C-alpha cells in the first residue's frame, strides 16, 4: 500500500488554518477548476468515477447520492455537512476541521456548485464550539477572497455558507434528525420515505454528507475521479481517516489508504504502534461503538484465515457471524485486561441515554438492555439474562425508525455472540467478578 495522504498531507504546516497558507499549498484549485472549466455535471461525474463512499458510517456512494437529488426547477437545493461527530470512538472530523478547516470549506463550495445549492450548512456538534470558531474564520477568509458569497469568481454562482451547531445530542447526527434540528425543531429522526434527496431541509431537495466525504471532493476534482479510484482496494477506493484509541501505544488520527491489513494497522509503528504495556490484544471495535465487536482472533484474520484488511468489504467479510463494519472509522482496541461485560454495559448506557424516544423498540429496549447489563456487571445477573439480552437486541434490530436502534442492538448482540463465556462467568461468579480489576481470561481469543 502506498503511503499517500490526501486530507492530512499539509497538516503540520504552520498556520494552515490561514487561507493564504492553504492557497500556497494548492488550496481552492478545485473551486477554480469546477467553476471555470468543468461545470456542475462534470463535477458529479468525477465524484461518481472516484468511487468515493460516504465516510459518515453507512458507506453509501457519494456520487450516486448526489445524482438522486431532485432537480425540479424552482426548488432550492441544499447541501448540509454532517459535522455532528458523536459516535464513541470516532474523533476524526473534529481533528480535520480544526487542523485543516479550508479543505472542508473548499469541498463545500465545490460540492454546492455541483449540486446547484446556493445555501449550505455545516452542522457542528455542540460541544465543539472551538471548531465552530475556526470554521467561521475560514469562511470569512474565503468570502474576502471571493470564493464565497455572490457571483463566485465571476461565474454568477452564489453561495451562502453557514456554520451552525447542535446542543449535544448524538441523535442529531442522524441525517433527518439533523435536518429537523437545523430547522429549529426537536431533533427527532424523520420517517422515511420521503428521503432528503426529495424532501429534506425546509422540505426541499437536500444532500447530507459527512465532513470527510466532502473534504475528499477537492482532491478528486483537481486530480480526477479515476486517479482517486486507483487508490484503495476494490470498491473501497481512496483514503480514510481512522481515529484509533484504546489500549494502543499511539492513539491518534491516521489517514490510511483503504486496504491496509488490520494487523499492520495495529502493530506497525506508522499507525497504532502495537498494544500498550506489551499486553495481548483481546478485542477490537473497528468502526465506532455501533459496529459489532470482534475478538482478536477474528479481527486480524477472516474466518477463512485470510488477512483482514481495513476496507469496507474485508471488515464485513463473514457477515455479523464473524465480521464487522468499517463504519465511521472509530477504531478501539481492548487489551487482555478489558472487561467485555463492562464495556458492553457502557455502550448500552450511551445508547439508552441518546435514544430520541420516538419509537417504542428503541425507547424501551435500550433502557432494558442497559439495566440487565448493569445487573450482570454488578453481580446481580441471572442465567436467563444472557438469552434475554439477545432477544431484546433482536427485537430492536431492524424494527426502528432510524439506525440508532440497530446501533444499540449490534454491540450487545455481538458481545454475547463472541464473549458469551465471559458473561456466564460474571453471572456464575458474582463475588469474583465484582472484585476491582477482575477479568475473565480466555487465552484462545487473545492475540
Amino acid at each position, binding site marked *: 500500500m502506498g503511503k499517500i495522504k490526501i486530507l492530512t498531507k499539509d497538516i503540520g504546516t504552520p498556520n494552515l488554518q490561514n487561507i493564504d497558507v492553504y492557497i500556497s499549498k494548492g488550496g481552492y484549485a478545485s473551486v477554480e477548476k469546477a467553476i471555470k472549466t468543468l461545470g456542475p455535471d462534470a463535477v458529479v461525474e468525477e465524484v461518481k468515477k472516484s468511487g468515493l463512499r460516504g465516510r459518515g458510517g453507512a458507506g453509501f456512494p457519494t456520487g450516486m447520492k448526489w445524482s438522486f437529488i431532485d432537480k425540479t426547477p424552482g426548488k432550492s437545493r441544499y447541501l448540509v455537512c454532517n459535522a455532528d461527530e458523536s459516535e464513541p470512538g470516532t474523533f476524526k472530523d473534529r481533528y480535520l476541521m480544526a487542523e485543516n478547516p479550508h479543505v472542508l470549506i473548499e469541498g463545500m463550495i465545490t460540492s454546492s456548485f455541483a449540486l446547484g445549492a446556493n445555501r449550505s450548512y455545516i452542522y457542528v456538534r455542540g460541544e465543539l464550539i472551538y471548531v465552530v470558531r475556526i470554521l467561521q474564520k475560514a469562511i470569512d477568509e474565503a468570502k474576502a477572497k471571493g470564493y464565497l458569497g455572490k457571483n463566485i469568481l465571476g461565474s454568477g454562482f452564489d453561495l451562502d455558507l453557514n456554520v451552525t451547531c447542535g446542543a449535544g445530542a448524538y441523535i442529531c447526527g442522524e441525517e433527518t434528525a439533523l435536518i429537523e434540528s437545523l430547522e429549529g425543531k426537536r431533533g427527532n429522526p424523520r420517517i422515511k420515505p420521503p428521503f432528503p434527496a426529495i424532501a429534506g431541509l425546509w422540505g426541499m431537495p437536500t444532500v447530507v454528507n459527512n465532513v470527510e466525504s466532502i473534504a475528499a471532493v477537492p482532491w478528486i476534482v483537481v486530480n480526477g475521479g479515476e486517479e482517486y479510484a486507483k487508490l484503495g482496494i476494490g470498491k473501497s477506493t481512496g483514503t480514510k481517516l481512522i481515529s484509533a484509541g484504546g489500549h494502543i501505544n499511539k492513539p491518534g488520527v491516521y489517514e490510511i489508504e483503504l486496504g491496509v491489513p488490520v494487523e499492520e494497522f495495529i502493530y506497525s509503528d506508522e499507525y497504532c504502534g502495537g498494544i500498550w504495556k506489551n499486553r495481548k490484544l483481546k478485542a477490537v471495535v473497528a468502526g465506532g461503538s455501533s459496529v459489532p465487536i470482534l475478538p482478536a482472533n477474528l479481527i486480524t484474520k477472516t474466518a477463512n484465515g485470510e488477512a483482514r484488511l481495513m476496507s469496507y468489504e474485508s471488515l464485513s467479510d463473514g457477515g455479523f457471524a464473524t465480521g464487522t463494519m468499517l463504519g465511521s472509522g472509530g477504531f478501539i482496541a481492548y487489551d487482555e485486561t478489558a472487561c467485555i461485560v463492562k464495556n458492553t454495559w457502557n455502550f448500552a448506557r450511551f445508547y439508552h441515554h441518546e435514544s430520541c424516544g420516538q419509537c417504542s423498540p428503541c425507547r*424501551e*429496549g435500550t433502557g432494558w438492555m442497559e439495566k440487565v447489563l448493569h445487573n450482570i456487571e454488578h453481580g446481580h445477573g441471572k442465567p436467563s439474562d444472557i438469552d434475554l439480552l439477545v432477544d431484546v437486541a433482536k427485537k430492536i434490530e431492524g424494527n426502528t425508525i432510524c439506525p440508532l436502534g440497530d446501533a444499540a442492538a449490534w454491540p450487545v448482540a455481538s458481545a454475547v455472540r463472541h464473549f458469551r463465556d465471559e458473561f456466564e462467568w460474571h453471572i456464575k461468579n458474582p463475588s469474583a467478578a465484582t472484585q476491582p480489576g477482575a477479568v475473565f481470561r480466555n487465552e484462545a481469543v487473545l492475540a
Partner: protein
Amino acid sequence: MSEISLFKVTIDGEEVEVAPGTTILQAARQLGKHVPPAMCYYTKLQGSGGKCRTCIVKVTAGSTKDPRPMPKLVASCRTPVMDGMVVANETSPEVIEARKGVTEFLLINHPLDCPICDQAGECHLQDLGYEHGAQKTRYDFERRTFDKIDIGPYVQLHMTRCILCYRCVYTADQITDKRVHGVLDRGDHSEISTYIEKAITNDFSGNVIDVCPVGALTDKTFRFKSRVWFTKPVYAHRNCPKCTGKVTLWYKGDDVLRVTGRKDKWGELEDFICNTCRFETKKTADWVIEGVVNVDRHSVISQNKYTLKAEKPVVPELASKHTGEGTWDHQLK
C-alpha cells in the same frame, strides 16, 4: 376526467385495488381484513404514524416492476403501496414475532393499572396486549412513573400511562396557531407537556382525550364516574356554532356521564368536537337524540371475553324445573 389507474395490492393472500398514494395500512382497512394494529397513526392527524411500530408488516414483493422483497419490516401506516405489492401481515411469523416484541416494549414501563383507569374497556393498548402480549412479564425493574398533571380545567395528563404516540401533539399542532403542547426531554424519560403546565385554552383541546390510545389523557369531568362498559352510547347532535355538534353521549341510567366524538370502526374520530359540547353540555334536553348506537367497541371487553354471550341462560326447560341445573349459577359451580 381521466381515469386513475388503481394499484393492485395483495395482503395476506387477498387482493385489493386502491388509489396510488394509499398506505399499506389504509389498503388493509379498505380490504377490511388482515388490518395491522395502529397505536400512533391517526388518519386525521397530518404527520402522525411511524412511531409505535405495532403496524409493521413484511413486504414480500415491492411491486410488479421491482418484485424484490423489502429488506426490513416496514411501518404499514407510513409506507405507500406500489402496484403489484405483496404484503404479509398475520401470515408472517416474523411479523407476529416482531409485533409481540413491540407489545412487550410498550408494556414494560406501563403501570398496568387498568382496574383504576378510565380508559379500560376502550384502550387500544389493552387490546394489543390481549392479542399480542405475553402471559408474564420478563421485565423485573422498577417501572417509570411521573406525577399527574392538570392541563387546564378539563384534561388530566397521566404520563405514566403514555406510550408516546404523539397523537395529542399533532392534535394540538393542528388546532392551535402557536405551539403549546409538545415533548420534553429524550428517550424513555421523554414527557408530553404543555409550556410549564400551561392550559391548552383552545376550544378544541378536549380532542386530545379522544385521540389518546391509552389512559394518559383523561376527561376530568368523567374521572372515576363509571367503567365504560357500564355506560350506554347514544348518538346525538345539537346546533353548535363551533363544531358539527355530532357526538356520542354515554349514559348511565338517565345521566349523561360523558360526551365524546364519534369514532369509526378503527377507533378514529369522525369529527373533532368542541369543548362546550364535550364538557359543558351534559343534559339530555340539550341534545337531539338519534338513538342508541351499536358502537363497534373494538375492545376485548366487547369480544365476549368478559361478558356473557346470551342475556339469559339458554336451557329453559331445565331452568323451569327449578333444579338450578343448566342455569349460570349451576354452571359456575
